[in-house]
C-alpha cells in the first residue's frame, strides 16, 4: 500500500494510452547509416566488387526500449501524477467550500494553505463537484471574494493567490457574502484555511458561513504562526528605535529566535537573542544598537524577527539613521553627576536628542574623531581659540553647529566667529518684575525656515535672550521669530556646513523652552537637517497644519517584507490618513514622502493587539493542517523524459555515424555561444532588488530677638541687643533703633529685618514654623545662635537637639561656611578674622549663599542670606559690660555689620560693579549725544 495508495493522477484517463506503447516496438524502423563518400584512388578496384546489402533493417533493441521508456515517462507525466495521503472528506452539497485567509499573517505558511487547498480540490474533482472559493482578500478591490469554479479553474486560481500585507476587512467580506448568498448555499462544508489570527470580526463571517454549512478551520502549526515587530515608546514616552514590542503567538522557548539588524543588502549588522523578551511589553533593545553606534559604515535598513520574511516580521528604519551622529560638547568625558542634573543644559539637550540619534557627550577631539555630524555647544561651555579654529574647519567641511548664547567667561581673549548673527554685547531681559513687557512668546516660524511645520507651543515664554543687532538680519537666516520680532533661532551657512544659534539657554531660567515639546521638535529637526535626511515624522510628535502635507508612496512593503516600487494608482494621503486609515489596496505599508518629510509605515505599527483564533471565534471545528504534503510527481517524469530524450538523441546520432563528422568544432563553438547567451539571459532575468503698636514697630528700626522659655537668656538678649542698638544710633546714620522681644507664634514678623534667635531646645508649634518659613521667604533674615562655641560641622544636626528640631520643620536652604570675601564681613566694618568671636571664639558662621553658588563668583551674587547660623554666643558678650574691651568692641562691630547687612543687603558689594557701570553709562552718554544732532 503506502506510496501506491497515496498515488493519484489528475488525468488518469491518459494512462490508457500506455497500451499503445508496445506497438511502437514494431513501428521503429532502421536508422540508415549515412552514406559516406570517400575518394580513395587506390580503392578504385573495389568498384568492381560486388556489394551485398549488409545494412541491418532494424535498430538495436536497446534503442527501441529507450524510446518506449521515454514515451512511457511522457504518458505518466501527462497523467499528472502526485502523491497525496488519502484523507476522505465528505462533500455533501453540490460543491465544496474553501475559505482562504490570505491577509498578512498568511505569508509564512501560504504554501501549506495552497497544498491543503489543492488536495481538497482534488477530492472535489474526483467526486465531480465544483468549488465555492472564498478569498479573504481578492486580487483586485473590485473583484468578488466569492466564486464558484470548476476544480481545474480552482486549481489555477489557488496557485495565483497571494498574501497581502494588511488585515482582511471581515465586515466587507460579510457584505459580499450576503450579496451572493445563493452561491454560498451550494456548499455544505466549508474548509477554512486560516493563518491562526483573528483579523477582527472573524466571528461574524464564521457565524454567517456556519448558517450555510459546517466550518472546519485549519490552524497552522505553532512555529509557523507569524509574529510582529511594533515600535514602542521609551520611558519618556517618545518613540525610539531602541524600544520595540513583540506581538503574536507566544513561545515558551524562544532560544532559536533572534532579532536582527540588517542593512539594505540583508547583511546582519547586529543581533540579540529573544530568550527573555515577552510579548506586549516595551523592550529595551539598546544592546542591539550599541555595537554598531560607532561604526561608520553601518547603515541599518531594517530589523527582522528571526528569519521570517513577511511584512509583520520586518521593521524598516529611516535611511539616514546612523549618519545622524550628535555630539554634545563637554569639558569632561561624562556628565558631572554631582550637581543636580535638572539645572544642567546637557541634561535637557541629551533628553531631547535621545532616541532620535546616537549622541555622545565628550570633549571636542573625541567628538571629531567619532565623526559627529551635529555638534551642540551648551551655553556654559567656553570655547577656546583652538576649539574655534577646529570647529570652523569642521563646519566648512559640512558640519552643523548648534549653539546657545555663548558664555562670556572667555571674552576678550577669543574672537568667536562661530555665531550666525552679530549679537549685542548685553543680554536682553524681558518680563522682569518691573518690566512693562510680557514675556516673549514665539510668534512665527517663517515659511522658508527649515523648521516650518513645527507647532508653536503656546505655553512657551522667553524671559531672557541674546539679541541680534537690528541691522544684522541680512547676513543670517531667521528660523524662528519672537512676539516682538526679535530672532529666537538664527542660522547661517558657512562653507558646506551650517551654524545655528538658539538665542536662549538650553536650561530653564531664561525661558521654559527646554522643557517644552517645541525644544524637542526643534532639535529633532536640526538632527534631520544635519544629516541631509528628509524630516522624519514620528508617531508621537506633531507637525503644524498636517492637512497641508500630502504623502505619496515612495517604496512599498510587500507581503514578503520586501521594499518594492509603487505603481501610480495610489492617491496621496494626508498625515491623518497615514496615522489612522487602515491598510488596504489603496494604502499599503511602505515609505511615504511629502515635499521634505518622510513617514515609514511598518505593518506591525498598524496592527492592533493580535489575537489568536480561539474555539469561540469559530462555529465549527478547528484542526491543524495535517502534515500532508502533495508531492507533484509530474516534474520528475518530465525530467526523466528529458534525460531519456537526450540519451536517445545521442544514441541515434552516434548510430547514424555522427562521430565521423569533421566540422564538429565550429558548430560546437557556435553552440557554446548560444548557450552562454541563454545562460546570461536566464541569470540576468531574476535581478529584483528602505510659578496697639504696629505703627511703633513699623516706624522705627527694631532689633528683634526670639523669646525663649529661659528668662535669663531673654534678659541677656534684651540687654545685649540694646548695646548694639545704642552703638548703631551713635555711630551710624541709623536713628530710632529699638529692641523688641518677639513671640514667633503670636507676633507679626513683617516688621523685623533681622530676627536674633538664641535657640533653646523648646519645640515650637507647626504654625510658628510656617511663619518662620514665610518670614524668610519675604526677605527676612533669621540669625540663629546656638551658643555652644563649637564648630558647626560637628554639632549640626545629630548632636544638637534644637537644631535637629529646626531642620525638620524649617525649610533651611543649603548652608555653607561664611566665605572670606562675604559682604557680611564688610557691610560696615571690615571683619577679617576667620572666626568672628562672641563669648566663644571657636565656632563658625554658616549661611546660605543662594542658588548659583556653584559657578558665579560671590561678587556677582545679589543674594542676601535669609538664614545665618553661628555658635559663638554673641548676646552674652554684648550684655557683659565687664568683658574685655577689645573683644567686646569686635563683637559689637559684628552686631553692627549684621544689622547693616540685614538693611542694605549687598550694597557694599556694588563697588565691584561701579567701574563697569560707569563705563557702560559713558557709552550710553555717547549714544545719546549721537542721537541728538
Amino acid at each position, binding site marked *: 500500500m503506502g506510496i501506491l495508495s497515496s498515488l493519484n493522477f489528475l488525468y488518469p484517463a491518459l494512462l490508457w494510452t500506455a497500451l499503445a506503447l508496445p506497438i511502437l516496438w514494431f513501428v521503429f524502423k532502421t536508422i540508415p547509416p549515412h552514406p559516406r563518400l570517400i575518394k580513395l584512388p587506390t580503392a578504385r578496384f573495389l568498384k568492381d566488387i560486388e556489394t551485398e546489402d549488409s545494412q541491418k533493417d532494424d535498430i538495436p533493441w536497446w534503442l527501441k526500449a529507450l524510446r518506449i521508456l*521515454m514515451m512511457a515517462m511522457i504518458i505518466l507525466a501527462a497523467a499528472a501524477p502526485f502523491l497525496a495521503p488519502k484523507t476522505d472528506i465528505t462533500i455533501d452539497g453540490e460543491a465544496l467550500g474553501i475559505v482562504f485567509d490570505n491577509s498578512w499573517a498568511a505569508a509564512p505558511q501560504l504554501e501549506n494553505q495552497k497544498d491543503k487547498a489543492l488536495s481538497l480540490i482534488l477530492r472535489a474533482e474526483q467526486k465531480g463537484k465544483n468549488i465555492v472559493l472564498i478569498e479573504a482578500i481578492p486580487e483586485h478591490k473590485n473583484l468578488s471574494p466569492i466564486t464558484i469554479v470548476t476544480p481545474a479553474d480552482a486549481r489555477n486560481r489557488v496557485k495565483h493567490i497571494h498574501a497581502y500585507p494588511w488585515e482582511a476587512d471581515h465586515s466587507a467580506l460579510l457584505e459580499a457574502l450576503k450579496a451572493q448568498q445563493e452561491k454560498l448555499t451550494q456548499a455544505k462544508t466549508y474548509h477554512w484555511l486560516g493563518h491562526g489570527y483573528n483579523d477582527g470580526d472573524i466571528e461574524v463571517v464564521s457565524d454567517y458561513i456556519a448558517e450555510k454549512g459546517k466550518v472546519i478551520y485549519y490552524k497552522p502549526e505553532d512555529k509557523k504562526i507569524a509574529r510582529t515587530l511594533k515600535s514602542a515608546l521609551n520611558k519618556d514616552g517618545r518613540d525610539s528605535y531602541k524600544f520595540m514590542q513583540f506581538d503574536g503567538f507566544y513561545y515558551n522557548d524562544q532560544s532559536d529566535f533572534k532579532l536582527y539588524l540588517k542593512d539594505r543588502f540583508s547583511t546582519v549588522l547586529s543581533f540579540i537573542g529573544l530568550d527573555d523578551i515577552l510579548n506586549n511589553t516595551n523592550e529595551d533593545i539598546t544592546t542591539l544598537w550599541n555595537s554598531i553606534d560607532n561604526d561608520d559604515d553601518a547603515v541599518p535598513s531594517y530589523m527582522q524577527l528571526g528569519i521570517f520574511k513577511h511584512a509583520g516580521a520586518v521593521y524598516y528604519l529611516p535611511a539616514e539613521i546612523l549618519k545622524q551622529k550628535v555630539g554634545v560638547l563637554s569639558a569632561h568625558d561624562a556628565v558631572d553627576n554631582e550637581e543636580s542634573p535638572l539645572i544642567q543644559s546637557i541634561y535637557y539637550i541629551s533628553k531631547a536628542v535621545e532616541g532620535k540619534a546616537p549622541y555622545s557627550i565628550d570633549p571636542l577631539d573625541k567628538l571629531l574623531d567619532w565623526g559627529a555630524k551635529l555638534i551642540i555647544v551648551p551655553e556654559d561651555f567656553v570655547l577656546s581659540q583652538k576649539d574655534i579654529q577646529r570647529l570652523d574647519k569642521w563646519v566648512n567641511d559640512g558640519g552643523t553647529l548648534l549653539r546657545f548664547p555663548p558664555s562670556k567667561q572667555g571674552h576678550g581673549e577669543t574672537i568667536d566667529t562661530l555665531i550666525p548673527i552679530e549679537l549685542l554685547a548685553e543680554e536682553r531681559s524681558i518680563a522682569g518684575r518691573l518690566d512693562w513687557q510680557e514675556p516673549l512668546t514665539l510668534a512665527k516660524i517663517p515659511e522658508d525656515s527649515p523648521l516650518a511645520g513645527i507647532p508653536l507651543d503656546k505655553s512657551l515664554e522667553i524671559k*531672557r535672550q541674546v539679541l541680534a543687532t537690528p541691522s544684522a538680519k541680512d547676513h543670517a537666516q531667521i528660523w524662528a521669530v519672537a512676539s516682538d520680532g526679535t530672532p529666537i533661532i538664527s542660522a547661517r551657512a558657512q562653507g558646506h556646513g551650517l551654524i545655528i544659534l538658539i538665542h536662549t539657554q538650553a536650561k530653564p531660567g531664561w525661558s521654559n523652552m527646554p522643557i517644552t515639546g517645541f525644544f524637542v521638535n526643534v532639535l529633532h529637526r536640526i538632527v534631520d537637517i544635519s544629516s541631509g535626511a528628509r524630516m522624519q515624522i514620528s508617531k508621537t510628535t506633531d507637525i503644524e497644519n498636517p492637512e497641508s502635507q500630502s504623502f505619496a508612496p515612495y517604496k512599498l512593503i510587500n507581503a514578503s517584507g520586501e521594499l518594492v516600487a509603487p505603481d501610480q494608482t495610489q492617491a496621496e494621503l494626508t498625515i491623518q490618513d497615514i496615522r489612522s486609515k487602515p491598510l488596504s489596496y489603496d494604502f499599503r505599508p511602505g515609505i511615504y514622502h511629502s515635499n521634505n518629510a518622510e513617514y515609514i509605515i511598518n505593518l506591525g505599527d498598524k496592527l492592533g493587539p493580535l489575537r489568536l483564533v480561539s474555539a469561540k471565534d469559530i462555529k465549527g471545528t478547528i484542526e491543524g493542517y495535517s502534515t500532508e504534503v502533495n508531492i507533484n510527481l509530474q516534474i520528475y517524469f518530465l525530467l526523466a523524459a528529458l534525460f531519456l530524450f537526450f540519451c536517445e538523441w545521442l544514441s541515434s546520432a552516434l548510430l547514424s555515424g555522427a562521430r565521423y563528422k569533421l566540422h564538429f568544432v565550429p558548430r560546437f563553438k557556435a553552440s557554446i555561444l548560444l548557450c552562454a547567451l541563454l545562460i546570461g539571459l536566464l541569470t540576468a532575468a531574476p535581478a529584483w532588488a528602505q510659578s496697639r503698636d504696629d505703627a511703633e514697630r513699623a516706624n522705627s528700626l527694631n532689633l528683634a530677638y526670639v523669646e525663649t522659655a529661659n528668662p535669663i537668656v531673654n534678659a541677656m538678649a534684651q540687654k545685649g541687643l540694646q548695646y548694639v542698638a545704642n552703638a548703631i544710633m551713635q555711630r551710624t546714620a541709623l536713628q530710632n533703633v529699638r529692641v523688641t522681644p518677639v513671640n514667633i507664634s503670636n507676633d*507679626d514678623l513683617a516688621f523685623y529685618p533681622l530676627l536674633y534667635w538664641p535657640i533653646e531646645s523648646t519645640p515650637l508649634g507647626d504654625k510658628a514654623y510656617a511663619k518662620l518659613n514665610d518670614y524668610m521667604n519675604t*526677605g527676612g533674615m533669621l540669625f540663629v545662635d546656638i551658643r555652644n562655641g563649637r564648630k558647626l560641622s560637628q554639632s549640626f544636626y545629630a548632636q544638637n537637639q534644637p537644631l535637629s528640631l529646626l531642620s525638620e520643620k524649617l525649610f533651611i536652604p543649603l548652608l555653607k561656611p561664611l566665605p572670606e570675601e562675604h559682604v557680611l564681613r564688610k557691610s560696615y566694618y571690615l571683619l577679617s578674622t576667620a572666626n568672628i568671636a562672641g563669648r566663644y571664639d571657636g565656632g563658625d558662621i554658616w549661611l546660605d549663599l543662594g542658588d548659583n553658588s556653584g559657578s558665579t563668583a560671590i561678587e556677582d551674587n545679589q543674594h542676601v542670606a535669609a538664614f545665618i547660623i553661628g555658635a559663638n554666643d554673641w548676646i552674652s558678650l554684648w550684655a557683659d559690660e565687664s568683658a574685655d574691651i577689645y573683644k567686646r568692641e569686635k563683637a559689637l562691630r559684628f552686631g553692627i555689620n549684621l544689622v547693616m547687612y540685614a538693611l542694605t543687603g549687598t550694597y557694599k558689594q556694588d563697588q565691584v560693579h561701579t567701574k563697569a557701570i560707569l563705563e557702560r553709562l559713558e557709552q550710553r552718554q555717547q549714544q545719546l549725544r549721537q542721537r541728538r544732532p
Partner: protein
Amino acid sequence: MNESFSTLQLELSPLLDGAHLMLALTLTAFGLALLGTLTRKAFVFRLGALAALILTILNISTLSTTERKTESIALVVLDQSYSNTINDRSVQSDAALELISQNLADLPDVKYRIITAPENNAKFQETNLFAAIDKEIAEIPPKQRAGVIIISDGNIHDIPEDLNASEISEKYGPIHHIITGHKNERDRRIEIIKAPLYGLKGTNAEIEFVVHDTEASANGQNISVTAKLPNGETLEMRARIGEKQTINVPIEHAAANPVELFAAPAQNELTIANNRRAVIIQGIRDKLNVLLVSGAPHEGGRYWRSLLNSDPAIELVHFTILRDIDSLDNTPRNEMALIPFPHQQLFHEQLDSFDLIIFDRYRNQGILQDKTYRNIVRYVREGGAILVASGPEYVSDRSIYHTPLGQILIGAPDNDVMETNFVPHRTADGQLHPITRNIDQNQYEGEKWANWLRQIRVKANPNDKILMDGLDGAPLILIGDEEKGRIIHLTSDQIWLWARGYKQGGPYIDLMRKMIHWLLKEPSLEEGQIELSLAGEYITVTRYINSDDAPLLYTDPEGTEKPLKLSKTAKRTYTAQVPADKNGLYSFYSGNNRAYIINGAYDTQEQTFMISNAQSMEKIVQQSGGKQVFADDMSGLKISAMNPEYVRNYHSFSNIGLRQSQFTETLNVNYAPLFPAWAYLLAFVGIICFAWYRESK
C-alpha cells in the same frame, strides 16, 4: 459609460524552482549544443520536440483580465485673491469659469472639480493657488489626473520651481492658464527693501525703499514720497523712480513704531493701493538705569534694593548714607568698609544716562551740594524722571524740599507726620488714571490690601494730580510734570510693609511697575490713552478720559483723516467703533495720545504686484504642455480630451486639451493554462515520432 476591454497576458509558473530550473535549462543547452553538432537530419524536429518538453516544464498560463478605463478628473481653479478682484477682473473670471464649465460638462469621460483659492481670510496675503491645487489633486490617483485650468491674473506666488517638465506633466497633467486683466496695464508701487523688525529705543532705524513703475519710460523721474513717522510728523521728500532711497526713523517707544510711506500716484494707474506701504518697527528698550539715593539704612531700603535688583533688565546704582557726618565713631578708618563713591561722575557727568532717580527717605545731610541739586532739576526739566518716597525727614529742617530741588518737588511739607493706621485709597482721579486704574486685580480685588502705618502730610498744588490718598484724604501719591520731565511723590516710606507680607500685603509690584513706566512715558500709561481692539470687522476704540479740547481723529490705510466721536458707555468709559474694511495701518490720535492698529497684513506680495502677469506662468504652462489664453481672447474656446500616448502638447488652435485617464479598474481576472500539460506532451510525442521517421529515411 466607459467600455470594458480585455487583456490577455502570458505567465510563466515553472514546475521547478528557480535554481533547479536554471540547472535543467543549462544542461539542456549544453546537450543541445553537443547534439546540434552531431545531428544533420531532422534537427528541427528534435528541437521542436525538446521545445514541447521545456514548455511543459515552464508551464505557461494565461491571465485574462477584464478592465475598464476610469474617468479622468480635471481641476478648474478660480483665483479669488485681492489682485484678481480689482477693476473688471472678477467679471472676466466669472465669464471664463462659465465657459469652461459648459465645455467640460459636455466631455463624457472627464469629470471636473472647481476649486477657489486662496481662502477669504487669506485673499490679501498671497495667491497660493498651487497649494490649493496640490491639496485637491492629492486625492486623485496620478493616472486619473486630467489637467488643471487656472483662471487668474497671473500673480501667483507659489508656482513650483523645482520640478522638471516630466514631473510637472506627471503630477498635474496639462496646465492651462486663462489670463484675466488686460494687456499693457500700468502701475506704480513702493517697495520697502530693508526695514529692521526691531530697533533699540533712542536709536534710529534705517528704512530703504524704491519706487517702481511698470512704465519703463518713468524710470529716473523724481516723484514725491510722503513719510509719516512714529511721532506723528510727516516728512515730504523726493525719490527717483527705480533708485534706492534711505530714510532714518527715530525709535521713540518701546512698543510699535509705525512708519508709513506714500508715493504720489501716476496717471491711469491700475491701483494706488500699492503706492502706500507701512512698516512697524518694534522698539526695544536697553537696560533701565536707575539711581537709588537712600538717606539712611532702614527697612524699606532692602525693599528698594531687592525690588530693583530682582529685575535683570534694571541696572541699579545705589547711593546710601550709612554714617552721618555727626556720627560718633572712633574706629580707625582702615577698619571700616568705605566706598569711594563717584559723586562727581554720577550726579554731574553722567546724570543724563539715568532713566530714573529715586530719592528714598533722603535728607540733606550736606553730602550733596546745591549745584548737584540744580543739576538734578535740569535733568528733570530736560526729560528726566524722579520718584520721591518720603519719610519723617521730609518735614524736618533737613528736608530736600529746602534744597534747590524744592522748586520742582510736588507736595510741600505740612510739618505733620501721621502715625496711624490707614489703608491707601484711590482718589477719583486715581480710579481713572492708567497707573492706578487697575492694580493687580488678580490678587487684590477692590482695595483689600494691608494698611500702612505712617504718612507725611504735604500740601498739594492744585495742578498736581493725586492718584491715591491715605489718612483723612491726605495725598499719598502725587504725580506731576516738570517741563519735559516727570515726578512722582509717594508720601510714605512704608510700601515695604506690603512687600514683607504684613496682613497679606498689597500690590506693591504692580504699583511700582506702573509708576516707573509712567515716569518713563510708556504710551499705554498716558492719561487719556486710546485703547484699540480689532474684533471681526470693527475696530473698537476705548478711552477712559475724553477731554473735549483734543478731539479724536484717525486715518485709515488710504491716508484719509476722519474725526471720531466717542460715546459714553459704562462709567467714564467712552467708546466708538470704526469699520475695518481696508487692509493696512489705522492710526488714532488725540493731543499727545496716539495708537495704531493694523488690519490684516500690509505689504504682502498680493498687494504689491497687481498688473496682469502672463510671464509668471509661462514656463510651467509650457512644460506641462498647456496653453495660456487672455480672457479677452477666449471666445470660441473648446476643450477636448486627448490621449497621452499620442500627444505631448495638449492644445491646438482654438482647443485646449485634457489628458485622458490611464487608470483602469479590474473587473475580472481569469487564470488558465495556455494548453493542458497533456497537449504539450502529445505534441512532443507527435514531433518526436516524426523525427524518428525522418531519421529512418
